[in-house]
């Protein structure tokens, strides 16, 4: 079965519908599936629920889907650095479910692993736990209360990887792995954009980060002009 598609629009063909839930990889602007986001914008699909750690910045990443008001609800841990998001949120046009970062990652991992719920200590006694079931367990730190959180089962996962072979085995690069790996596993269908497709057999099977079983469709998104939110450097000491 051929997983490689010529472009993002064809890779998403038949997968998009109004009101669907999309899980997206990336942390800030690092490792975001930008070609696929562009194609979702172009498709005009709306009423989306998007599970993603962040919401991009104005006109970058998921910020593009916010500008066009295609997102109805975000499930995120941190949404700073986004004026349009703030405007829609304060105007009541956008629903936001704040989810602790580790809980969000685990909800995606759990969803992908077929686990509908799990208990975590994170958020116990805070607003995040309001309305959720709690249960006392004898854990590593003695008897404590834990909060029931639900796995995420998304209709579609859109992620970015560094390299893939033709069968969809993926390798990520540095901190661009982030939410891309758990997000990829929790979609009914996972579409991946990569910087490079390499011939099957050229990746060391011991060095695959995510096996191709999770990947249904792929595109090559290169060339990328990767954005950096905050450039921080040190000066080289001159001899």
């Amino acid at each position, binding site marked *: 079965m051929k997983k490689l598609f010529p472009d993002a629009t064809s890779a998403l063909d038949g997968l998009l519908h109004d009101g669907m839930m999309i899980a997206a990889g990336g*942390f*800030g*602007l*690092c*490792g975001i599936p930008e070609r696929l986001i562009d194609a979702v914008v172009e498709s005009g699909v709306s009423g989306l629920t998007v599970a993603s*750690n962040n919401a991009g910045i104005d006109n970058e990443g998921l910020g593009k889907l916010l500008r066009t008001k295609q997102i109805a609800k975000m499930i*995120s*841990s*941190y*949404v*700073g650095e986004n004026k349009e998001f*703030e405007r829609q*949120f*304060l105007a009541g046009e956008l629903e*936001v479910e*704040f989810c*602790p*970062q*580790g*809980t*969000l*990652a*685990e909800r*995606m*991992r759990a969803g992908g692993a077929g686990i509908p719920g799990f208990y*975590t*200590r*994170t*958020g*116990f*006694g*805070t*607003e*995040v736990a309001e309305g959720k079931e709690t249960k006392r367990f004898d854990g*590593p*730190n003695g008897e404590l209360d834990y909060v029931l959180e639900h796995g995420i089962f998304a209709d579609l996962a859109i992620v970015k990887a*560094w390299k893939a072979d033709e069968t969809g085995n993926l390798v*990520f*690069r*540095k*901190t*661009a*792995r*982030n*939410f*891309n*790996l*758990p997000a990829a596993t929790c979609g009914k269908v996972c579409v991946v954009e990569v910087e490079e497709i390499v011939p099957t057999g050229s990746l060391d099977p011991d060095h695959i*980060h995510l096996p191709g079983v999770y990947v249904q469709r792929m595109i090559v998104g290169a060339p990328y002009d*990767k*954005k*950096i*939110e*905050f*450039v*921080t*450097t*040190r*000066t*080289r000491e001159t001899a």
Partner: protein
Amino acid sequence: MPWTRDEMAAPAAKELEDGFYVNLGIGIPTLVANHVPAGIEVTLQSENGMLGIGPFPYEGEEDADLINAGKQTISELDRSAYFDSAQSFAMIRGGHIDLTVLGAMEVAQNGDIANWMIPGKMIKGMGGAMDLVAGVKKIIVVMEHTSKNGTPKFIPECSLPLTGKNVVDMIVTDLCVFQRPDHDSPFRLVEMAPGVTAEEIAEKTTARYVS
């Protein structure tokens, strides 16, 4: 004289032990990295998926795929390791990180911490703070002793929505250090900035503590 931001990082750094894996929050907590005692090896964790954070890169060597949790460009070390976000928080939640230093808007006398939202203001989100305070072995808060208008921040009970319940082990302010041996004990005043008196601390603190 109150401690400067950089001096506030020093008491927190004294808690570091050889071999510790540590997560430092954004702001003053980041400065703790500059005070690691000599002869001690500490590995810094970045919750976006890295152990072994290196210094900022040299100009021209910035890599968009290599950032810290504050989205700043960083570099890697020879012992660095990368992993995904689920793995990152598995090590945090699972108690494998020894110590974290983070900022706060309020800390209560029972160790509750509030640092993620002010009702009525734009909420940015808790990021990884709730996971860190719930899972890391030792929690150190570094914050100004009072807010800009002089309101105490170490108080009987938090007025803001909580980030974690009964989780804080140590508080470093610009005036002093409070510490407690376990989560059932009250905080004790253990150190003061030069020239700061116990009376001044008492005046600017509404939380109950042992002096």
